């Protein structure tokens, strides 16, 4: 009898959790940015493959997809390095912790 009640309680709590999740839009993010960046960060350093650093501002935009906007220094880097539409960037971060430094490699088209 007790096991049936316990089972029903578990099912109910899971259902309630699911309903809350659906209605309150509490999202679980996965991926690079959430593993490597801190949502409260306002500045970040981007180090390119020549060892140059670009001091950027960073902004977290909470929406359906977790989104970080890297501004300021990025614009300077685009101009300085003559990046063009279609070029690719690989951004890397160490395995542990939230970082204030990201590393990048530019692959030209």
């Amino acid at each position, binding site marked *: 009898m007790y096991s049936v009640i316990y089972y029903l309680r578990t099912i109910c709590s899971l259902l309630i959790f699911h309903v809350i*999740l*659906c209605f309150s*839009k509490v*999202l*679980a*993010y*996965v*991926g*690079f*940015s*959430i*593993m*490597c*960046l801190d949502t409260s960060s306002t500045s970040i*350093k981007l*180090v390119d*493959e*020549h*060892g*140059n*650093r670009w001091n950027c501002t960073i902004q977290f935009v909470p929406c*359906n*997809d*977790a*989104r*970080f*906007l*890297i*501004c*300021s220094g*990025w*614009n*300077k880097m*685009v*101009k*300085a*390095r*003559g*990046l*063009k*539409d*279609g*070029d*690719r*960037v*690989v*951004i*890397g*971060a*160490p*395995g542990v912790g939230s970082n204030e*430094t990201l*590393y990048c*490699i530019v692959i030209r088209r």
Partner: protein
Amino acid sequence: MLPMMFKHDFGDQIRQYVIMVDRKENTFEVLVERNNQGIYLTRGWGALSDFYKLSLGAWVTIVYVGEGRFNIRLMDRFGKKLRCPEFSPPMEFLVDRNAIPVTLFNVVPGPFAHDELNFQHTYKKRLESDEMNDGVLVIFDKCIV
């Protein structure tokens, strides 16, 4: 690598970082490494070839003007002067001052290369025209509802 003669005459004036300045006042900060043979310009030097789009056989003339500053002039392999990109304000390249390598006296320093440990997590992106025009790089992840 700077010549031994230069090291003998001006080596004591060169500190850990030097500045390269072109005709349009664009500046490049470069890390200086030394061993028992000479002075090497390492981290940040590669930015020159990228910025001026130097190809094989290009010439770089560097003139020491004091206080850790060098004036640079660039020519292609045929001796034709290369155009210096002009920016207002002039472009300023700074090197990352973290994880400066220790150079042993008998080891030739290598060019800058990223540490593999800094690429344990990677994010690859093809740049769109918006990111060029707006000056904003967007990093986004998928989410699970």
